[in-house]
């Protein structure tokens, strides 16, 4: 890969679930001018109080290496794994998409939701809230299609990711 080429990486970080840990990670990104495209965090192991942060970022290979090294040296960080480099991985995101429409547009939105396997989780005579789960690209495509059909509001969770097969962090 060329040294100046910017690529997107999904990085998983296992941290102690303690006060301020997210601020440390976010502060590192903002303080050093790194890019955050998406960031999710939740406790994954209650017994050991560990949380998993999934961050999607982009940069040159040197910047990506820096990001991982900088994350690794934070005291509450246990492990840093670059899912983009470590092999194939599954990336999923959930979005709630509100569409306000009537007549043909309303019917069309329902048809497209069906194609995308999105579920209507709320409905009124003039609106739907669709729940869609998939790769960020799939969700982007769905939202784009909903735009002319009365898209009014979107809420996305950001990416959760895990490597395929037997490989673990």
């Amino acid at each position, binding site marked *: 890969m060329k040294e100046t080429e910017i690529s997107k990486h999904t990085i998983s970080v296992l941290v102690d679930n303690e006060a301020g840990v997210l601020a440390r990670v976010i502060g590192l990104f903002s*303080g050093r001018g790194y890019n955050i495209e998406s960031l999710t965090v939740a406790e994954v192991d209650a017994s050991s109080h560990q949380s998993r942060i999934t961050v999607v970022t982009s940069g040159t290979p040197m910047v990506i290496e820096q990001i991982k090294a900088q994350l690794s040296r934070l*005291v*509450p960080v246990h492990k840093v794994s670059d899912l983009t480099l470590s092999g194939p991985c599954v990336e999923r995101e959930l979005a709630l998409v509100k569409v306000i429409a009537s007549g043909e547009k309303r019917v069309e939105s329902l048809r497209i939701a069906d194609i995308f396997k999105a579920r209507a989780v709320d409905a009124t005579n003039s609106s739907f809230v669709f729940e869609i789960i998939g790769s960020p690209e799939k969700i982007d495509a769905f939202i784009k299609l909903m735009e002319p059909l009365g898209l009014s509001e979107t809420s996305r969770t950001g990416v959760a990711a895990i490597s395929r097969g037997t490989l673990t962090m």
Partner: protein
Amino acid sequence: MAERILSGSEVVLQALVDQGVEVVFGYPGGAVLPLYDEIFKQNRIRHILVRHEQAAVHAAEGYARSTGKVGVVLVTSGPGATNAVTGLTDALMDSIPVVCLTGQVPTHLIGNDAFQEADTTGITRPCTKHNYLVKDSAKLARTMHEAFHVASSGRPGPVVIDLPKDILVAKAPYLEPSQVQHRTYNPVVKGDRGQIEEALELLASAKKPILYCGGGVINSGSQACKVLTEFTRLTGVPITLTLMGLGAYPASDKQYLGMLGMHGTYEANMAMHDCDVMIAVGARFDDRVTGNLDFFSPGSQKVQIDIDQSSINKNVPVDIGIVGDVGHVLEDMMKIWKAKQHKIEAKALDSWWDEIEGWRGKHCLSYKQPKDIIKPQHVIRRLHALTRDRKTYITTDVGQHQMWAAQHFGFEHPHEWMTSGGLGTMGYGMPAALGVQVAHPDATVICFTGDASIMMNIQECATLTQYRLPVKTVILNNRYMGMVRQWQQLLHGSRYSESYSESLPDFVKLSEAFGFTGMTCNNAADLDDALTKMLEIDGPVILDVAVDDKENCYPMIPSGKPHNEMLLGAETTGDEAIDSDEGMVLV
């Protein structure tokens, strides 16, 4: 073992004692009163009362850098903590182990905008290696011990422990240091053997090798410096040191090329530019060292040894990056070099040294000392000569005098040179000297400063008097913020905007007002007498030396220029202005 239940303050004090702490630099206030009460009741730990919290941190840094131990600071909440921020940032940039205890309002008031409340952990997060807010008495002892572990291991740095007042009063269980396990922070110290072997093969095949070493060697300890010296002599390779690394290798040695970087020597920078194999040891390719990265040492293969993974490939991509404590790695390098009977081809090395001698011939640090006006470089050189037989520690403030001290005072041993390298904090010198003198009461401690820098922590004169700390402060007084003036002259058409030191105090009267000796020196003929007299006085002294106000600090690599485009100054080429708009935007 049965748990010992103590008050929070007792736990803090006991932890300090068990961590081997002898001195704390601090300033009391409401939130830390319980701790100060505990300090009053004991005599195991000495408290040095500074006059400003920033100075407490710099003093702890001076103490830490001159002893290799952790420096400890104690300040109150709110303004106590915010005043400490500059010192903490300074310690972070220069990788100095400091533990800073800050008071905090009681836990039930946190977040209520209480009197003297500040979000200390929030504010200090980016300027510490790590920080803690103790909200549970059960975790107090563990946190104290962990803080010392984090501050002193791996790449050292400052650690803040924020202590709410109720935690200091409440009962808490005490744990010995040995009872605390560190779950996440266990840095690698041993380097990868395969990589070390590879690096040595590269070095053995070099025709123009160079060792580029920094503060990491000093942080690794005196033993690491000793091994570095042995390795350098064994291989016959030229060596250059960074501002932070001065003293890691004896300056008088013939293999030493001097400091490199923006105000480094011609020979060091030219050798860095033209080398074919560079071994960076505990140095981080700072912008003051590399100059323009696009032209930095273009023809070399690079090896970097650093305990901090994030220092490797940060600014300059290297061919071999070895993560480990430089002391351990250097020991391994010595062993393997000997075992494999590596040798650099003598002919190649000789012709490399010939080339270097050519650059040395420029005598880039030379200056002409006239009969009357005192050249600032001359003050440094004379004081160096006059203190050769004494155990001497040098601290500086920031600016021209700092660079002259780095260039002209030859450091033979590690831990004797304290300067604010990364952050460039004016006001560092006097409090750092104070900390050094506390650690080494019988040594000669000299603070080189400027007329502008000294004003930034001048209140510490009172601390010198109170504890009878015989620090010798030498002001190279050119009535300017000299480095600012130099840049204005070179880059901004000699428009000296706000860089003239108007209304300077009379430093003799000022010293006397604080209760110690003040001296002046205005003529080169009197310089040696003044310096000798100053050294003989048994107490603090401020010596105000009027130096040539036109003198600029050379050599100089202007910002944005490569190593081989140095300005050499009037003695060799004549002053030159840098006509470049690009230069103006660079730092």
